[in-house]
């Protein structure tokens, strides 16, 4: 065994094996940011392309477009993944620039609530349109 490296390092052998660092999350946050980024490339381009190629943006056209299962499904994925990606990104921005603990916790918690609310509302609205409840 390489005793020298064990003695010179202040990290315990267990921490080195786990590789999770001081935040105990390892690369999970960073990696999720990348995976959601890749997923959002086709999803966002689909939304932009769909909206731009609709013949018009009047209510009936948009409702019919969104109520097609493929559109509804992709729109739900888009809202969910966007909310998670934005949550990860704005969390990092907050952690980097807000230094007082109280304000940081307040903003981070507010962001969590905001994204769950926003994502939940968006997905619920899409389901209502897809399932045909929008005109009841």
């Amino acid at each position, binding site marked *: 065994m390489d005793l020298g490296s064990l003695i010179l390092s202040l990290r315990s052998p267990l921490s080195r094996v786990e590789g999770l660092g001081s935040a105990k999350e390892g690369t999970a946050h960073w990696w999720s940011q*990348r995976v959601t*980024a*890749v997923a959002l*490339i086709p999803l*966002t*381009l689909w939304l*932009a392309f769909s909206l*731009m190629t609709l013949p018009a*943006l009047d*209510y009936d056209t*948009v*409702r019919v477009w*969104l109520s097609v299962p493929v559109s509804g499904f992709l*729109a739900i994925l888009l*809202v969910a993944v*966007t*909310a998670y990606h*934005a949550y990860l*990104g*704005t969390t990092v*921005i907050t952690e980097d620039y807000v230094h007082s603990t109280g304000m940081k916790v307040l903003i981070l918690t507010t962001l969590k609530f*905001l*994204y769950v609310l*926003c*994502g939940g*509302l*968006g997905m*619920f*609205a*899409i389901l*209502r*349109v897809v399932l045909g*409840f*929008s*005109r009841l």
Partner: protein
Amino acid sequence: MPARARPLSPHLEIYRWQISNTLSILHRVTGAILAVGLIALSFWLVSIAGGPDSYAVAMRFFRGAVGIFFLIGWSFAFYFHLLNGVRHLFWDAGRGFEKAQRHASGWFAVAGSVILTLGTWIWIWGHSS
């Protein structure tokens, strides 16, 4: 222990302003702008579920001067964040780190997002008449 001025790592102001750090900052700014755009997207989706009347209210906002201003901002933020995000993904894969490549891909992201934004709005105005 006596308070003593410790050596600090260089602060932001000490660096020469250049494309790399400008685009890095712009990536975060556009990301934050797009996070606000998610609220607008949800608002729009909820307005569709609410029926023709609520949809008309939402579209009155989006077709108004303020709405168009925000939509143009979101479209540029989207294209830039998309192109610069792909640039970051290439870096994460260990590619494109040479100085010339960094600068070229940076300017490509800037030019690409401006051209795509202009193209999008020319296309929209051409089809909205």
